């Protein structure tokens, strides 16, 4: 609106000439942003505020109870079940973040070399990612069933993959990697296709082929994609819930109970919404912190 007042208005108010170059702002931008802003406030900021508020009360699932200050957080600090669940979440991230990134890269490199079958291979590797979590988990429950499953039929093993404390978490991680690796492959493929052919040709003239070409050309040029993949993957691994909920329910005896599973059990099974909110808020802060640290570390590398 201010622009319509110029030039007289500018002269009259003595606004420096440089402000003329500012994009038309204020009310119009606000008007256009409004729908998103409202949705953001309503469905993101408000629930977070409510969660923080609830975490300071002693509440059941459906009724807000009395204010208890930081009691829930004090309890949380001394709650070994909570710290165990943080540890399990970390273990899951450890089992998935690097493998899914590395495998995605390897698959992208392999697919990129194909000429005729490239689209086919790409589709094949990407396919699992399209499936909803319920289908993925059901599929692997059948494949790994210790009495009637495919693996049992082929090898005769009676290992209950989701039922032993030693194998449950690695198996959940394996299923997750199988399910999500295709997406990372696509990101890497896009990155690979952005590297111009001339760079490789120039490097080849200087004698950089095979490993050397990868080490000095591909890898550095893919680094921005790699940091993106690592960051996305770390956040999504920390938010692990549905696979654990369906495949192990946090068992056997809590050995795969991740933070969000603990939060779910507390809120929806034990009906303790106040404490569950405290878990949620604390975990929100943990994820925020870890993401910031990771971003700082990765930025240093580039």
């Amino acid at each position, binding site marked *: 609106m201010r622009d319509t007042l110029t030039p007289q208005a500018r002269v009259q108010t003595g606004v420096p000439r440089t402000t003329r170059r500012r994009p038309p702002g204020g009310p119009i931008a606000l008007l256009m942003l409004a729908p998103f802003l409202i949705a953001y406030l309503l469905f993101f900021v408000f629930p977070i505020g409510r969660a923080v508020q609830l975490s300071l009360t*002693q*509440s*059941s*699932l*459906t*009724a*807000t*109870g*009395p204010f208890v200050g930081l009691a829930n957080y004090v309890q949380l600090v001394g709650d070994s079940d909570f710290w165990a669940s943080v540890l399990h979440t970390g273990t899951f991230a450890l089992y998935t973040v690097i493998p899914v990134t590395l495998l995605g890269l390897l698959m992208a490199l392999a697919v990129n070399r194909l000429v005729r079958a490239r689209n086919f291979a790409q589709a094949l590797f990407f396919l699992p990612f399209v499936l909803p979590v319920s289908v993925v988990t059901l599929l692997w429950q059948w494949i790994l*069933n*210790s*009495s*009637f499953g495919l693996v049992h039929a082929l090898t005769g093993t*009676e290992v*209950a993959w*989701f*039922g*032993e*404390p030693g194998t*449950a978490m690695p198996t959940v991680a394996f299923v997750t990697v199988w399910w999500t690796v295709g997406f990372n492959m696509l990101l890497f493929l896009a990155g690979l296709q952005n590297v111009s052919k001339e760079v490789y040709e120039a490097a080849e003239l200087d004698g950089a082929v095979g490993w050397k070409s990868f080490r000095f050309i591909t890898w550095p040029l893919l680094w921005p994609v790699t940091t993106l993949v690592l960051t996305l993957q770390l956040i999504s691994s920390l938010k692990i819930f549905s696979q654990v909920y369906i495949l*192990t*329910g*946090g*068992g*056997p*005896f*809590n050995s795969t109970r991740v933070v969000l599973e603990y939060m779910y*059990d507390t809120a*929806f*099974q*034990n*009906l*303790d*919404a*106040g*404490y569950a909110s405290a878990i949620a808020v604390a975990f929100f802060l943990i994820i925020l912190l870890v993401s910031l640290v990771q971003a700082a570390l990765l930025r240093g590398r580039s």
Partner: protein
Amino acid sequence: MTRLTRLLTLGALMSGAALAQQPTKITFWNFLGGGDGARMKTLIDGYNDSQKKYQVQQTVLAWGVPFYTKVRTSTSVGQAPDLISFHLSRISGWAPENLLRPITTQELASAGLKQADFFPKLWQAANYQGKTYAVPLDTHPMILYYNKDIAGKAGLLDASGKLKPINSVADFTAAMKAVKDKTGAYGLAIENGPNSYMGWRMWVSMVAQQGGQIVKDNKVVAGEAGKKALTDMVNWFKAGYIQKNPDYPTSVAQFTTGKAAFMINGVWEVPTMVDGTKTKKLPFAYGVAPLPKFYGNQQNVWGDSHGFAIPNNAKNPIPADHVAGALDFIAYVQKNGVTWGQGGHIPAYLPVANSAQYNALKPNADYAKASASNVTYDPPGWYSGAAGPLEAIAAKYLPAAFAGQLSVDKALSMFENEANKLMAGRPKP
């Protein structure tokens, strides 16, 4: 007749017809899947066809925590349905929270129902502090299924082809040993993977058979009886009579494909056997018996009951005509309880439970009377009952003991710790 009057007459006729055809809609949420779901649908369709005043519309939701969470939250915001299915084992948790609308004797009477028509034990389970919060529909205890071919080879049948009596842990152990030695099959198929409930139900039965108690004053008190029951079960796994870790569908498949001589499961698997025999998919003759006496003379068996309840929708109270419709439907289901009984459940409604038609049902007659009179519910309390947190905690540790991942003492102490923590820390809004 002018055009106008003709139009008006037509309009009046149509709206009159529309009014006459507009039945009151009774919304009904339930968690009844599989065969139970099919039978409930038959009953609903039958009811809707039998009269014009009401129309019951059902929504089937996932069993367990998701169902109860949804009912709880929708009740608190005033969006609950008129009628829900409900486990009577949860009355003691839900009634004090005012989540269910009490049903008065007069309301019941106007639908033609009265207390004397129900098994006293079930009526008691549907009541809390003198008020009726649900109408019982059935009892569904665990029973013992057996494969007559395997049992015959192992010498466990009498001359008439029925299972010889099993009256102690030793008897049952010997029977499973005979099966293993003579046929190589598993003795027993029972769900026992992580987070499975059948171990808890078995434990509840076996503790009760010793005259023991599991919870008292919000504390676990199972003690020696609990330890003895769990040790006896774990020994069966150690001896290899039961496969470790199968989940629910696997355990049923083990039995129905003839890989195990016995199965301990709820009566709700009866239709699987009946239908399997009818379609010749079951490769053997089967029999059923009440859960054996493992200790002394008591024949307690874990069981639960389905019932109907009306959510206490405080922000949007249910209108009187919907209450009348819901109760009218409940009365219809009770009177046609034989259909429900075909699902293996024992009807709560005495006129049906005692009727010749129900008692002619096979194999229900082989277990119904004994099981119904010995049924033991989960311990009462807000934390207890079907899909309640106490059961969920037990489902973490008992299966771990069966699988040999935890010793009996360790599993029980971990169960006690988590259960006591839960029961002590009740949120009080």
